[in-house]
């Protein structure tokens, strides 16, 4: 019978510095592969919607303003997102990526969780359109 094997561990802990990270004060970089908030680069998007199709949580909506002119707006719901990166896998043109830096998403209301990606004017046009049709605005924003 040994008296408490853990004693050694405890004493070592006492002389060592605590392992605790001072997170809110000191912010360490996350690993480069971290799957944070989704980003969309409209440049090469063809509007194939493969990302939307396989999203397990309905977190992505691709809103086509003008298919021929390749004017799309991507509405991303960070609150629904499962951060599984299947959309990134699916995209054949590498339009989608996940930020390794934007992971502090907490907020006091849900407004910041709906993110619009696309060119300024497209988003503007879309929001106006939605406002005009206020009765059926934002399809499926609230499940």
């Amino acid at each position, binding site marked *: 019978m040994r008296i408490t094997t853990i004693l050694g561990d405890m004493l070592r802990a006492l002389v060592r510095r605590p392992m605790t990270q001072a997170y809110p004060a000191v912010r360490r970089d996350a690993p480069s592969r*971290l799957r944070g908030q989704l980003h969309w680069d409209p440049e090469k998007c063809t509007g194939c919607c493969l990302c939307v199709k396989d999203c397990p949580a309905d977190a992505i909506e691709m809103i086509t303003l003008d298919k021929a002119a390749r004017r799309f707006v991507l509405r991303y719901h960070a609150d629904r997102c499962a*951060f599984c990166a299947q959309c990134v896998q699916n995209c054949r043109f590498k339009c989608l990526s996940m930020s390794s830096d934007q992971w502090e998403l907490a907020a006091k209301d849900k407004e910041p969780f709906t993110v619009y990606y696309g060119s300024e004017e497209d988003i503007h046009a879309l929001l106006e359109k939605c406002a005009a049709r206020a009765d059926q605005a934002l399809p499926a924003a609230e499940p």
Partner: protein
Amino acid sequence: MTETSRLLEQAAQITTPWGKSFTAPEANRLDVVIDANDLPAAAAALNAACWGYLAAITGLDRGADDGRIEALYHFCAGAAVAALRVTTPRAEARLPSICAAYPSASIFERELSEMLGVTFVGTPDVTPLFLPEDWSPDAYPLRKDIDLSQPNTVPVRPPPTNGENGKHFIIPIGPQHPALKEPGHFEFSVAGETVIGATVRLGYAHRGIEKAVEQRNWVQDLYLLERICGICSHIHATAYCLGVEKLAEVTVPPRAETIRTLFAELERLHSHMLWLGVAAHEAGFDTLFMAAWRDRETVMDLLEQISGNRVHYSVNVLGGVKFDLEPQHIDALLNGAAFIEERARYYFDLVNHDPLFNRRTRGVGVMTAEQAETIGVVGPTARGSGIVRDVRVEAPYLAYTRCPVEPIVETDGDLAARFSVRIRELLESCRLIRVLLETLPEGALQTRMPRRIRAGEAISRVEAPRGELFYFVKSGGGEMPERIHARTPTLCNLASALILSIGRPLADIPMILVGVDPCFSCNDRTATIHTADGSAEDETWTWERLRRYGIEATR
């Protein structure tokens, strides 16, 4: 595979008198179609010949056109899986119970009657398992034609009251309780400090995943099934992928196989260390809890570094894996494995020699090998009682075919043995990680998967950190699966915990419960275990009654 084919031949011989057709959908499988009335006789014959154990009963609704409900009784022996297939008309679904031969079938039969509306003749228990109290008794969630847009509710019965019940005192534990980080509601009747009865109500984490997968496509289902459990997420996804890939006849590149295996072992590392910490916490040994979780962060860091997420790594895609290993990851993995190995040795020393801790583990919750066999426990809980039940050994899959696993077995059957098994498995996993990295094949990560999976059925069995995980996948040839049945390792182990807790002091209960590493989000069932009034002895449990609850759970 000669052993497997010998076993299958034997199964075919046993069931010959009743078999109407024999097919072999895969090399290690045998499907025997029999008449529903012959079911008890065939099951009894298998039981008499000691051919394997009842792994699961899968129910299939074949739709209004076919007009039948099919039930598959899966028996597993080594790598061989034999299924007895019976059908019954949909309008009046009725099957004979096989509880006489396999008491463990009771819960499967209850599930089938609840989810598919099959009446079992001669089954001992027909109470609902995991649907809420106000669920309508004639809405069957897994039938194809159920209208789930309706709430399907009926007025509720008043809930049972807590507190003094007759002459016994009842201690409720859960669903919100510090000992349980997950929801499950237990009620222990105590006389003084001694537990004389135990019941559990599960279903707090029942989300209806088995139905939801039928409404989503094959890729979406991968992530849905991964989220059955946050601790063993990877192994759920892997089991599903293995099944779907078998159906699609897609071969996964060897490098992807190795990476999957690697993550399965990392997952085992973090799960076992998490368990060690939680178990220590239950014993009021917070220093060990903190130490185990501190060291576990090493594994979490590795997972995050390679996959980009600490918990749902989502490494799998259908047809391969998403993330490759860079040289720096391999270095980090080797260092991490060395560190964990060193700490695991230390913990092994600790849990075997700390005098006060040993007072809480030695001789507590003893389960003999015979008991374990009849209750039907799996995984480390079974291996702590001297039963070698490890799918990685019995039916190797993925890279385990190339890198054999040494099964870890202890024979004492008490909590201390379960501690030893899990800690020694840490060492074994570290060794496996090293071997896997040494033999890491070069090559592609993914094979292209079709969006539609050809029609068929596949079975995949894998070893989760808590024991055998059994998946049945059926495709109708479309973009969505027709049926996915997941049977998780937790409930059979949980039933054992309830049985073992009777007659023990209340203070041992959290330890015994946690000793089996229950995972309530993996399984949602109700099992009820009562003792006769006033008696605190185990003898109130006949073996028949014990066996009735020693069962595997499904989702």
